[in-house]
């Protein structure tokens, strides 16, 4: 539910007794039409926005970049240098930069929907949109490892640590397999989902709670309501940081997994 609609709903309820805090149901919006939801439209829009921005910023590329080209190159340089090269190593990192770059832009744009006025719905608050991203990242690092070390070589590389007495390997190999292969896509998904979900819920809570308290008719409650709105604004600024950080972290972890998978034995 966009925040404005949530506030309106809270205003209607203010007449009745009791305040109903927003719950996970605020992500279940009515369909826009023909099985299309708002999140679907937003995800589609993000693809258009990113394509448009990248085409516009790289179209008339010159040696001395203009403003738009500079902005595009800054984002690209950030992903290529501080994420990909640092984590994958300077030998193979260029193969993975296109994947990491599109991953980063896609997540950043979809996260910031949560704070854009009138849109105000982070499409990654629905877990279904993140599962494919995590699955692609998972397949990519496993594929990269198999490409580098061979099928059995990769699983040996990923699950058998060096310099460990052989009797303890019985215990260690299943644990390493679990933490290096099985759990990774789940934590990738849940981290991004949890942050977007909780952030949106928090904003909705402050907005609806503030609206309810303001219309309560009690002067003290009204003061607290204003405080709630101020907290909502403060949390919005926190969300600005979190939204970027989560996109960065998702891309960084994807890059680190790839870098770990194709690292040389030593």
């Amino acid at each position, binding site marked *: 539910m966009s925040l404005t609609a949530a506030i309106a709903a809270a205003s209607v309820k203010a007449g009745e007794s009791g305040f109903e805090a927003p719950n*996970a149901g605020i992500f279940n919006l009515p369909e826009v039409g023909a099985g299309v939801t708002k999140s679907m439209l937003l995800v589609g829009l993000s693809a258009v926005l990113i394509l448009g921005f990248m085409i516009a910023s790289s179209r008339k590329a010159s040696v001395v970049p203009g403003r738009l080209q500079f902005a595009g190159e800054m984002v690209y340089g950030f992903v290529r240098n*501080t994420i990909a090269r*640092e984590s994958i190593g300077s030998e193979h990192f260029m193969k993975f930069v296109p994947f990491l770059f599109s991953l980063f832009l896609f997540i950043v744009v979809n996260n910031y929907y949560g704070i854009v006025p009138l849109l105000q719905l982070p499409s990654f608050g629905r877990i279904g949109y993140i599962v494919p991203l995590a699955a692609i990242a998972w397949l990519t690092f496993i594929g990269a490892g198999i490409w580098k070390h061979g099928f059995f070589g990769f699983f040996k590389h990923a699950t058998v640590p060096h310099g460990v007495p052989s009797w303890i390997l019985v215990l260690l190999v299943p644990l390493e397999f679990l933490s290096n292969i099985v759990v990774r896509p789940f*934590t990738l998904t*849940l*981290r991004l*989902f*949890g*942050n977007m*979900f*909780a952030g949106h819920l928090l904003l909705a809570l402050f907005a609806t709670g503030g609206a309810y308290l303001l219309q309560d008719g009690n002067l003290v409650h009204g003061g607290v309501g204003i405080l709630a709105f101020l907290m909502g604004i403060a949390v919005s600024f926190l969300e600005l940081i979190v939204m970027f*950080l989560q996109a*960065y*972290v998702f891309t*960084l*972890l994807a890059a*680190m997994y790839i870098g770990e998978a194709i690292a040389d034995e030593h």
Partner: protein
Amino acid sequence: MDGNLNLIGLGLSAIGPGVAIGLIFAALIGGIARQPEAAGTLFGRAILGFVLAEALFIITLAIAFVIK
């Protein structure tokens, strides 16, 4: 008020990662103060630690809403 014990557990489970994230960034600031030129490398490592500490809470958050 309604709700269940899950939410109390959720609040309790935020303590551990909260302390951990505080320690991680305290160490980061200390490290940068001692060696400002290493800030870039340290930041990446700190974010990795932050992410691992945060993951515990995020998993709890998901589970708290799943288990009735």
